[in-house]
């Protein structure tokens, strides 16, 4: 019999075996990063990507009310200093001894930023929730804002007025990949239909507009923006306050082991004590009217 088929089978099998073998043998080794230095928080002494400059990353586009106001001012323009997160950065910078001109903005994808490794920026903020899983690979500052998950649907939807989690069991829900919003759907709401998962909130919004999903889960301020500005006819059906899920604490995201963290936390604490954080929240993140709260 011709030996040819045998050789091909062997070759193919070996290629596949190589991959499988690779996962089973050897043992992983933890990568230890540099330990945080204790030291002065003067600008000159800080461990910055570009000395003398504060390089801050955020998403693209950066949406209101985090960057820009809900009226459309400063849309996707963090240098305008408008929007909760944009304004926060400039306050922090001033607190730490930078001038406004020292702040340099750069843009990164949501997932990319969380991935382990060194970063070409000092810190990133785009509504990152502090989670244990993420803390294994990156560092967070102390929380700067606490929020809840919210459900956005169309007015008149059968899911527009849920009184409990059980009312959402049959909903087709969607969220962005890698977010606590997605985890919330899968671990807490647990609808009978699997959640639809999108590359970004823009796609989730497109799917809702196309009638492919009943609603999306996002943080409350984002929900405000979507319903006020982005999707006509949409409403916030509920915000969630459950024991099963911790509230979302947003933190600034740093490369693992970045020695900037203590100094930033000091500045953040100062802003909190002076009431600045509350002031920013009042300006950008509070809306009139009450949103029904679901706790179970």
């Amino acid at each position: 019999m011709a030996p040819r088929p045998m050789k091909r089978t062997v070759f193919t099998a070996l290629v596949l075996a190589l991959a499988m073998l690779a996962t089973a043998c050897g043992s992983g080794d933890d990568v230890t990063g540099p330990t945080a230095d204790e030291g002065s928080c003067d600008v000159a002494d800080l461990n910055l990507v570009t000395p003398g400059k504060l390089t801050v990353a955020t998403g693209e586009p950066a949406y209101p009310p985090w960057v820009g106001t809900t009226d459309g001012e400063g849309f996707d323009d963090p240098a305008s200093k408008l929007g909760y997160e944009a304004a926060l950065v400039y306050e922090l910078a001033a607190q730490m001894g930078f001038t406004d001109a020292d702040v340099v903005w750069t843009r990164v994808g949501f997932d990319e930023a969380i991935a382990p490794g060194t970063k070409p920026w000092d810190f990133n903020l785009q509504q990152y929730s502090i989670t244990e899983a993420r803390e294994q690979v990156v560092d967070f500052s102390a929380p700067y804002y606490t929020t809840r998950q919210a459900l956005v649907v169309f007015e008149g939807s059968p899911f527009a007025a849920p009184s409990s989690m059980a009312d959402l069991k049959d909903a087709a829900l969607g969220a962005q990949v890698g977010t606590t919003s997605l985890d919330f759907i899968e671990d807490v709401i647990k609808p009978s239909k699997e959640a639809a998962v999108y590359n970004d909130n823009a796609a989730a919004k497109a799917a809702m507009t196309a009638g492919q999903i009943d609603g999306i889960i996002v943080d409350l301020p984002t929900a405000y923006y979507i319903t006020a500005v982005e999707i006509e006819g949409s409403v916030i059906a509920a915000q969630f306050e459950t024991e099963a899920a911790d509230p979302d604490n947003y933190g600034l995201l740093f490369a693992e082991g970045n020695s900037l963290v203590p100094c930033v936390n000091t500045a953040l604490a100062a802003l909190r004590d002076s009431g600045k954080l509350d002031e920013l929240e009042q300006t950008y993140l509070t809306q009139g009217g009450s949103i029904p709260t679901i706790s179970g």
Partner: protein
Amino acid sequence: MREPSSIDNVGGGPGLLGPPPAPGRREEGTRAALIAFASTIIFTIVALWVILASPNWPKIQQQFFDWGHFVEAFPAILKGFWLDIKMFLGAEVIILILSLIIAMIRSLRGPAFFPIRALAVVFIDIIRGVPVILLILLMGFGIPALQLPGVPKSALFWGLTALILSYSAYTAEVYRAGIESVHESQRMSARSLGLTQGQALRYVLVPQAIRNVVPALLNGFVSLQKDVALVLVLGIREAVRAADIYAAKTFNYTGYIAATLLFLIVSIPVARFTDWYTERDRRRKQSVTA
């Protein structure tokens, strides 16, 4: 049937292992096979040793080849892959039929058929010129957003439709090349027997054309097997998306490797089958009397 000569057996046909070596006797054929086998083993061992001994290996292994993560990620990815399989099998059937119809329309001759021939050309040009992902987004989000009555909203429906249209345009050109590669005398013989253009295509040209282009069609099929993953942008949880979700949650990429293996498990056999088919066809043509 005469015994196949060793020129056919030794070393295998073109493709994976290169052109067959010079003719020899049966014993030489077996010996060559053993040498190839042994050298493959040695090569693999050396390659494995080089990789595993590298200082970066532990990091790479933890990130991409961690067994614990593999086991944890696998069920969801396998479930997503099952959806991929259903998608590409279903789509392929429709593509083969639709593209054949388009190709036959393009092959009709004569001024009377100009309008539909032109329509086929326009369709092929536009659809083939647009990236599949763009088509998927346009149709998957765009069309349902119009909220036209009676039009389906499902992301899966429009995602698959976009894939089917895209691949039908490409495959139609494959068929057309096949039809045109059939000797002109065949068409003339068919017409001279009184067959209409449609009958000539159906009974004479297309059967031969298909035989000629089976490898190219299989190639397109392998391509489709991978491209079905693109519907993930519409929120559909097929294998790559499932791996993506896992990676975003755990920052470990072993899930991607698991998805890779699954895709290879279906595509490699098809590639080998294509090689076998091409080789068999070539041998048959060689033995045909003039």
